[in-house]
């Protein structure tokens, strides 16, 4: 069923100068799917994720959210979004969590979370605050609601960032190496939150180096190598029985 597809990525290509980072990649996430993108640094997985919400503009290919295609057209020989307003509306349906949290430093935790719902979704302050408090409860940092990001640990900041993304009620969550910038002892608290979201049936695309996480929560694991999908499949099968040499090597390296 077509309307079961939450996100489709069709034959995305992207060059940075002479370097071809993505050489034609496709993905399809049905509602509730968790797709993990794994691979060495430089394999293109983060770029692919950033192409999904057009933080990077693909040179060719299509991104389809629900049944809406992000419209693009060439401007002076390079592809560009065709309709800024359309892109802004599509982005509201995609929650993004960054490696470096990227919380707005001049706003408290609560203000970070209600900013989008209030000004982009048109909620009243009271509605937005009520929802934000539930989300803070969910990510386990309700007591920090009036703190500024600079007063929080990395793990706390990342959990706020997740709450901020969830506050927009996105159809798909995008995670770009959400635990890579964290001190080892803070990784678990963020992984717990991500696992919780998977258990709720959230549709998620996840770039990660945490193989255990990818194995536990993914419906599909996609292994990228030099801008191409080298291997993809169910996590348990792929990880215990890799078909390609490259994936075997990669798994040995990160194990």
């Amino acid at each position, binding site marked *: 069923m077509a309307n079961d597809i939450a996100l489709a990525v069709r034959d995305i290509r992207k060059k940075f100068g002479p370097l071809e980072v993505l050489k034609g990649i496709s993905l399809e996430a049905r509602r509730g799917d968790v797709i993990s993108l794994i691979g060495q640094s430089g394999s293109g997985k983060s770029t692919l994720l950033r192409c999904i919400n057009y933080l990077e503009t693909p040179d060719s290919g299509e991104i389809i959210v629900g049944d809406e295609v992000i419209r693009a057209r060439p401007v002076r020989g390079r592809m560009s979004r065709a309709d800024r307003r359309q892109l802004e509306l599509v982005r509201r349906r*995609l929650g993004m969590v960054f490696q470096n949290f990227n919380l707005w430093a*001049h706003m408290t935790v609560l203000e970070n979370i209600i900013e989008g719902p209030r000004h*982009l979704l048109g909620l009243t302050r009271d509605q937005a605050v009520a929802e934000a408090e539930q989300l803070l409860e969910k990510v386990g940092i309700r007591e920090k609601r009036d703190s500024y990001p600079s007063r929080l640990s990395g793990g706390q900041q990342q959990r706020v960032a997740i709450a*901020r993304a969830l506050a927009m009620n996105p159809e798909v969550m995008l995670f770009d190496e959400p635990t890579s910038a964290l001190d080892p002892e803070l990784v678990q608290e963020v992984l717990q939150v991500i696992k919780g979201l998977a258990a709720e049936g959230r549709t998620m695309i996840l770039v990660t180096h945490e193989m255990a996480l990818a194995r536990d929560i993914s419906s599909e694991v996609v292994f990228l190598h030099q801008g191409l999908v080298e291997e993809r499949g169910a996590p348990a099968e792929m990880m215990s029985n890799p078909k390609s040499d490259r994936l075997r090597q990669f798994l040995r390296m990160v194990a």
Partner: protein
Amino acid sequence: MISDILQFLPPLIKALPLTLMLTAVAGTLGLFFGIILALARISGYRILVWPSFTLGLVMRGTPLLVQLYLVYYGLGELLPGTWVRHSWLWPYLRNAIWYAILVLTISQACYNAEVLRGAILAVPKGQIEAARAVGMSPGRIFRRITLPQAFHAALPVLASDVIILLKATSLASTVTIMEVLGTARALQRETMMILEPLIAAAIIYFVVVLILTQLTSLLERKATSYRAR
């Protein structure tokens, strides 16, 4: 001598509102146009970058007094020969205060633009990206994310520029404006006393600057409370 100085204080305090008005108007408009100039500088469009860069170079590279003379006497020379002489603008243009406000504003805008440009560029890219990812428009990102942080970062320099502006308004006395220094000069002529009116004027400027400094440091502490200690 002390009693002479004290006797000059009341008439000078009466002139203080004009000094404060010049500072407030040129300071506010200067900040507004400073933001626009800073945006023009970093826009990347050559037709915006080039004029804003040149204006800043010229205004910051020449003395304010020279600029004031050029505008006051220059425009005063040129305008009467044009259509402006018979337009509704003319009654205003005969008043020196508009020339002073014009020059002070542009000058202030150029200094503000310089600080703001750096402060805007220093806002972390990741925060801008997070705002784009959530679906904010470029205008909203600038108003809600970039400008507040740039403003907080620039605040110490912006505040000291306002204090410099306050003192620079005294130059307006050279084009017949009776603000604090202009009034002091008139008192010199009336009383034939050279030093006392000037000392009284200096005291007034000093006290106002002192108050302003206190206010701005209070503001700074509030505005940057979110930063890591």
